[in-house]
């Protein structure tokens, strides 16, 4: 049992390290999604230009629009990049259950998303005059971003074998993450209004349930999704 766990974690870590190394070398995902995120912030910042009272009410939604759109790009690259490099067969030939390949890819996507979001936080703070550097928001970011990564990585796998992937992925992704958006925006509104962990606990619990359910389902479906 311990030996199996060692093997599984070695494979997951190998995939994670490989993806992060590739990203460090090429920055093919990180730079575009950071620029894209910043552009969305700028566009909203100039286009909306509301009074402080209106800004407080729309800021939570704007924050998560930025994170969801940027996160979508990151998740999209997850398995598509294997297809472009024509290396997907190497992962499929690995003598491990395929859900562990998914977990390795998921971790890499998740860490990348978190990193980009952290870089966007101060810019969001400046443009929308909000303070997101709180423990409550950090916890929300960690849990909600995990959900985005779980769904996004799974759907990236679906799009590998689909011809109309540029169309299919957003059509599938955005409806599926509506629960995340609802919970995240509601929590952010409470946090920006000065509420503490106790007040957002219910929303965080719903997010956690979503994350766990989809994490398990994605692992179970992954082999089936990639099978020809």
């Amino acid at each position, binding site marked *: 049992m311990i030996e199996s766990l060692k*093997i599984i974690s*070695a*494979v997951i*870590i*190998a*995939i994670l390290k*490989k993806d992060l*190394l*590739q990203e460090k*070398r*090429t920055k093919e995902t990180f730079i575009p999604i950071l620029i894209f995120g910043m552009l969305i912030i700028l566009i909203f910042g100039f286009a909306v230009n509301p009074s402080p009272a209106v800004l407080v009410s729309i800021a939570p939604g704007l924050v998560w629009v930025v994170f969801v759109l940027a996160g979508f790009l990151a998740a999209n690259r997850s398995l598509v990049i294997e297809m472009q*490099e*024509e*290396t997907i*067969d*190497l*992962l*499929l*030939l*690995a*003598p*491990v*259950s395929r859900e562990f390949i998914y977990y390795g890819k998921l971790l890499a996507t998740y860490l990348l998303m978190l990193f980009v979001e952290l870089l966007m936080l101060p810019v969001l703070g400046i443009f929308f005059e909000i303070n997101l550097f709180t423990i409550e928001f950090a916890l929300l970011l960690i849990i909600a971003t995990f959900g985005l990564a779980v769904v996004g990585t799974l759907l990236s796998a679906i799009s590998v074998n689909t011809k109309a992937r540029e169309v299919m992925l957003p059509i599938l992704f955005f409806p599926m993450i509506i629960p995340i958006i609802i919970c995240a925006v509601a929590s952010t509104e409470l946090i920006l209004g000065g509420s503490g962990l106790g007040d957002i606990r219910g929303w965080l619990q719903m997010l956690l349930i979503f994350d766990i359910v989809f994490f398990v389902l994605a692992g179970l479906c992954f082999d089936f999704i990639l*099978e*020809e």
Partner: protein
Amino acid sequence: MVNPDMILASGISKSFAKQRVLVDVSFSVAPGECIQLLGDNGSGKTTLLRALATLISVDQGSLVIDGYDSQKDKTCIRGKIGFLGHQPLVYSNLTVSENLNFSASLFQIVNYRIKLSEVLDRVGLADFRDKRAGMLSHGLMKRLSMARILLQEPEILLLDEPETGLDNQGVSMLQELVNANKLRGGSTVMTTHNPESTRSIADRVLMLTGGKITPAS
């Protein structure tokens, strides 16, 4: 009862959409045997090899590899297979040694660091170990794929037109790879468009015509 065959395919059929690619394919490969699989373009050679590698599942029939059923024991089968397909399966932004390190981790190869230098020497890539794989020629990438398989030391080699893109030295390395596998009691199934280049290492030749196996004349 011990199964004498390393590979036993019985009544394999596979269709993509409504196109039948493999039709009732049955054959066996003994330990230490090398099969050369010939056929025209579109005859189903690559599909058959990918089915043996568990990269695709078959619609009908059974496939038993070293005693493991391909429907139930895919993970066990994958640990025994060295697959060399049309694509070299290398990451262009990783160096030669990083590519091999990753493969070794993925395939859980023990003590691969000790073998790495020797393997690179055998395929003539020692001078390229720190070079990014994307800067290699197609032939050198093919050698990198062979190095990946040498590290693995699998019991079964599945080679899809392996001589494509290789120079004479590369073809000799390929022959060495197959012969070394035979000496270890491993089996090889190899497709080719150029039977003469690998005829010397093949023990038996099968033809695949319209998705059906026939003995070669």
